[in-house]
């Protein structure tokens, strides 16, 4: 991105203060969202989400594995974000590593819930086939193809869409004769189990520019931010995760205000996203 001149910076900040941003949106408006599911045939579930000029692809692969010793009744989910150099040349090699890690950690925090599993988007106990021996390992891989701000929200939306597109094959397990023996597994090609994604939260990032907060910032607006708060809200209005980003400090009352704005905005975003995902699934068939 080419640097902004002083005049452009004033234009951005002034617009935000007057509730009329550079592209005509108000402070609480999202860019139009475009969802496509089933884009990667090799994966168990996938989705491509476009939010303005930001484009991300999420793919979910399920592999059979062994549950961890600490939680034998739970499957495993790991989230990994890759920032491709096609998005920005600075992401080549190690450049995008820091951003990828920050995004992966934020997504894991919002989607995996507390350590006991409460508030998780995906119920991990559903992924277990034989307690202590066989479980599903879900690998959620997200790729940032084009970046124009608000990566976290688009990634969360893509993961939500990919999860609703995911089909886990039905597995027939034959337990071995003795408890120590590994059970035989027969993975079916025909029947699939779908996920219930009504509990999956979305992430709304509020970017603070000056004294106001905006939703869904473009990369130009993000360059002017002092700090940002990413809030993950589910359909019931419960906060499932929160990450403060950016360097400047924030007053606690400001954080409270930002969280309530995020809660309010997220309800509309969830319904828009759900209808887009349903439309994408329908058109795929």
């Amino acid at each position, binding site marked *: 991105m080419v640097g902004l001149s002083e005049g452009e910076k004033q234009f951005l900040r002034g617009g935000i203060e007057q509730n009329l941003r550079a592209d005509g949106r108000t402070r609480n408006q999202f860019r139009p969202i475009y969802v496509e599911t089933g884009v990667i045939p090799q994966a168990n579930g996938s989705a491509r989400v476009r939010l303005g000029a930001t484009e991300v692809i999420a793919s979910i692969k399920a592999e059979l594995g062994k549950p961890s010793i*600490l939680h034998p009744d739970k499957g495993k989910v790991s989230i990994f974000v890759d920032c491709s150099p096609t998005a920005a040349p600075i992401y080549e090699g190690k450049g995008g590593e820091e951003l990828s890690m*920050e995004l992966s950690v934020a997504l894991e*925090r919002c989607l995996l819930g507390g350590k*006991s599993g409460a*508030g998780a988007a995906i119920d991990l106990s559903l992924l277990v086939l034989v307690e202590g021996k066989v479980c599903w390992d879900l690998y959620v891989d997200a790729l940032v193809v084009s970046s124009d701000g608000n990566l976290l929200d688009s990634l969360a939306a893509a993961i939500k869409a990919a999860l609703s597109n995911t089909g886990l094959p039905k597995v027939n397990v034959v337990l071995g004769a003795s408890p120590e023996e590994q059970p035989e597994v027969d993975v079916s090609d025909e029947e699939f189990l779908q996920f219930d994604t009504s509990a999956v939260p979305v992430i709304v990032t509020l970017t603070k520019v000056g004294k106001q907060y905006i939703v869904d910032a473009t990369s130009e607006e993000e360059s002017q931010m002092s700090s940002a708060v990413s809030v993950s809200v589910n359909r019931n209005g419960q906060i499932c995760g929160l990450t403060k*980003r950016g*360097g*400047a400090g924030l007053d*606690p009352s400001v954080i409270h205000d930002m*969280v309530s704005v995020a809660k309010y905005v997220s309800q509309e975003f969830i319904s828009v996203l759900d209808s887009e995902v349903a439309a994408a699934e329908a058109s795929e068939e």
Partner: protein
Amino acid sequence: MAASTYSPSQGAERRQRQQQMRRLSIQSDWDRSDGRSFIQCRPAFLRTGAANAASGSAYAEFGTTKVIVSVFGPRESKKAMAYSDIGRLNCNVTFTTFATSVRGQGSDNKVYSAMLHKALEGAVMLETFPKTTVDVFALVLESGGSDLPVIISCASLALADAGIMMFDLVSSVSVSCIGKNILIDPTIEEEICQDGSLVLACMPARNEVTQLTLTGEWSLPKIDEAMGLCMDACVKLTGIMRTCLKESANLSS
């Protein structure tokens, strides 16, 4: 027959204990394993000047969590960086292999390093050391729960000991949510069965939050309650940190 090992039990026994703890926690009043109430923090032991070779250093012991932080700088950075008129803060967190009950389990190094950086960058005046780097190295000697807040508080104390200019000391506290109860400064047993957590780092004098992360399911009033608890505890912790710095200044003079 293979010889039996000395490793701590990870299997059925531990799960039973955890399940018992969960059943207890559903009730409203129960005693925490170290006798504290829900809103009582562990006693804090802080000392500066732990490492002689460093520009500044600090050692913190909060219950069973023991952390030592060294600050080197401002000095020339190893990586050849382009000229910048503000300084750079480089944070690194490592766990010793004997820090956790399972050898070599603490592998959140990169994540914790990034979070430490985020918590401190709002407080350090980077303009006061242009073209140079300040390195903050944190070593967790024993991980006994609530690790990141202890690392952040100890690192801020070490930065003050090194004489790096800051807006205010950064102190950090975390709360755990188990069932309906909010427990401040959780131990590792409480963290394992928690339903949610909130880690807050703030600068009390400016009343500014430099870092806030939340996991699990929360309602807005609950977040307010937890944040209020944390801010209050942070103010008191900063008081303790200041006393520690004054004592070490008196000793050296």
